């Protein structure tokens, strides 16, 4: 071996503290992040991938898992399994809450930015409040609003002669009730996102348009929308990821079963139940990875739709 050592290599300096410090100290200084990431990020990730191919109940203890190959994935992808239903619920609630969020947030931000600029700070604060409110408090308030016999909504409906609605009891109604809460909670967040996007658009463009005789609608359609594209892409992506991982709101409103007939059972809730109530960690891990793939695919689709005709700008 020794004769293969290249003779041209620079002579190795003897060990010195300065040299050690220069070479390794930076690694030492950045190590906390990598250590934390390895323990709390990478390890759970790899462990869940490992578990996805095993049958394991945590009560059996570490090491007592059984390799089952792709069985967990086959189980989740079976046509009758709850996973499909939960995924369908998730997408449906996501659409019901996500689309109105953006349809409202965008014009709202435009109006605040152009017409109500003096109150912009106050509006931003008010709009942002639902986003930072505790989910438990929200659930309690909305459970009271939605209450079939004691709720304010049905009381007001009764005043104008409407029949009481079973907001959280009727399986057909549940997705709308949950979506309304999600909409209420995140519409302000999106408005604030769009507001900051609008502030990045130079006033000169609008002034030029005014000189050219453009009206408000034309300014919105031909200037604001195209220039807001990057922010819209960002906001859409956040909404997609957030909607697909929806857990807090339906869990608090409907308990872990997802309400009547599981109509509000989202994928994240189903995964949680499978892991911590049914103690089937392998199946839950497999579904987590499938959910990850679904989110990834939807994000890619979003990316594609946004870059398809606007990427050349």
């Amino acid at each position: 071996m020794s004769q293969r050592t290249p003779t041209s290599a620079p002579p190795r300096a003897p060990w010195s503290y300065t040299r050690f410090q220069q070479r390794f100290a930076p690694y030492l200084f950045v190590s906390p992040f990598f250590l934390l990431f390895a323990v709390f990020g990478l390890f759970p990730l790899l462990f869940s991938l490992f578990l996805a191919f095993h049958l394991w109940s945590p009560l059996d203890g570490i090491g007592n898992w059984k390799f089952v190959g792709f069985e967990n994935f086959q189980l989740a992808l079976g046509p009758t399994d709850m996973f499909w239903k939960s995924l369908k619920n998730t997408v449906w609630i996501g659409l019901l809450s996500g689309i109105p969020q953006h349809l409202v947030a965008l014009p709202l931000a435009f109006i605040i930015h152009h017409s109500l600029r003096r109150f912009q700070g106050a509006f931003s604060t008010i709009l942002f409040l639902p986003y930072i409110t505790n989910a438990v408090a929200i659930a309690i308030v909305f459970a009271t609003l939605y209450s079939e016999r004691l709720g304010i909504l049905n009381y007001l409906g009764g005043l104008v002669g409407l029949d009481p609605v079973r907001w959280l009891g009727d399986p057909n109604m549940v997705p709308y009730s949950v979506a309304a809460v999600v909409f209420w909670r995140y519409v302000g967040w999106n408005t604030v996102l769009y507001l900051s996007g609008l502030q990045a658009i130079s006033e000169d463009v609008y002034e030029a348009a005014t000189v050219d005789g453009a009206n408000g609608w034309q300014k919105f359609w031909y200037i604001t929308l195209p220039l807001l594209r990057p922010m819209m892409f960002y906001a859409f992506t956040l909404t997609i990821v957030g909607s697909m991982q929806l857990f807090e709101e339906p869990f608090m409103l409907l308990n872990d079963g997802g309400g009547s007939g599981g109509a509000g059972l989202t994928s994240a809730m189903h995964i949680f139940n499978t892991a911590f109530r049914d103690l089937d960690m392998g199946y839950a891990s497999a579904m987590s990875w499938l959910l990850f793939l679904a989110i990834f695919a939807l994000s890619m689709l979003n990316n594609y739709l946004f870059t398809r005709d606007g990427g050349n700008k």
Partner: protein
Amino acid sequence: MKQTAAFALATALLLGTAHAQEKVTLTVAAFPSLDSAIKAILPAWTKLHPNVTINLQAQQFADHHTAMTTALATGQGLPDVMAIEIGYVGKFAEGQGLENLNSAPYSAAQYKKLFTPFTIAQATGSDGRFIAMPTDIGPGTFFYRKDVLDKAGVNPLTMQSSWENYIASGKKIKQKTGAYLVNTAASVYNLVIRTNLKSGEGIYFDKQNNLLVGPDNARFVRAMTLAKQVRDAGLDAKIGEWSNEWYDAFKKGTVATQFSGAWLQGALQNWMAPDTKGLWRVQNLPEKGFASWGGSFYAIPSKAKNKQWAWEFIKFMTLNQQSQITAFQDNGAFPALIAAQKDKAFSEPVEFLGGQKARVLWRDAAAKTQPIDVNKYDSVADQILQTELTNVLEQGKDIKQALADARAQIARRAR
């Protein structure tokens, strides 16, 4: 030489005093309202064992069991004594993280006959390991509003005699008083599937792990059929349990009957509907269906640091008659210990139930309750069936079809 002897003497003295004043801290993990019962019993324990301090860690019900599950998985952060609720004891019995109390030094077999029989089966795994000592039980019982039934001219015994009579009486109650029969049709389903099981049968699986759910199982067909009849006749208020509407219905008497554990009396009296004192009565469940409705246990994790004292503590909580009675007086935790059930407090009338001697009735019901086999896929089956029941009730799905679908789904998951 002299020096060594002196050192040895000093060491021995030090060790001796240390031993006499040895302080032990025992960690006990529990959930509400069991923690309240433990606190009530603690003074008696401290009097007996002043050197053993109890560090009580109470978390909310679901959090407690999730924390215990993860602690058992990793073997880290385990308490010395672990409280387990009935819904989890079956799963925990199937795992290997808890001490088998059948074996030495516990040798709990000698104590089993002291408890209400069905609780012992609940804490025994399919491999025969006995993992937890029962502390309280929940005898299933039939609550009814006497004033509402009287107004409708309905005899409670008729309602008890058969499910068909129960529904017929419900129609009469609805017609005469406007009150609903029951909070939700699912209550009837949930009770029918839990009662009159054959020996060796669980709710969803039998002793040999065979799945019992299906379109040809009379118990499930009947349970869904009766629930559907209740819904179709407009007799259920479509109210979920533990909701504001539920409490409101108790307060206003808009729902005439409620099946529950005996513990509901305490909850009604203390916070749900204290003003309805004297209006309620209890009787046994319809068609002599005796059922267990709740219950708590104490277990020792295999990796606990202080198993010896943990066992002493558990024995004090479960086998000591006075402890069991203290818990009963504190929050109505019905003793699992038969001797404690014979206390004179049990033959006293319950004022909230119009002076009825209800506890004797519950004691009798508990003695008649048969053990039900538990299975680790019970919660999977339960969730799938609840969804199918909703399909039947809300969307008019055919019952046989719903049960066939449920069977297929459960069979795939129960591996």
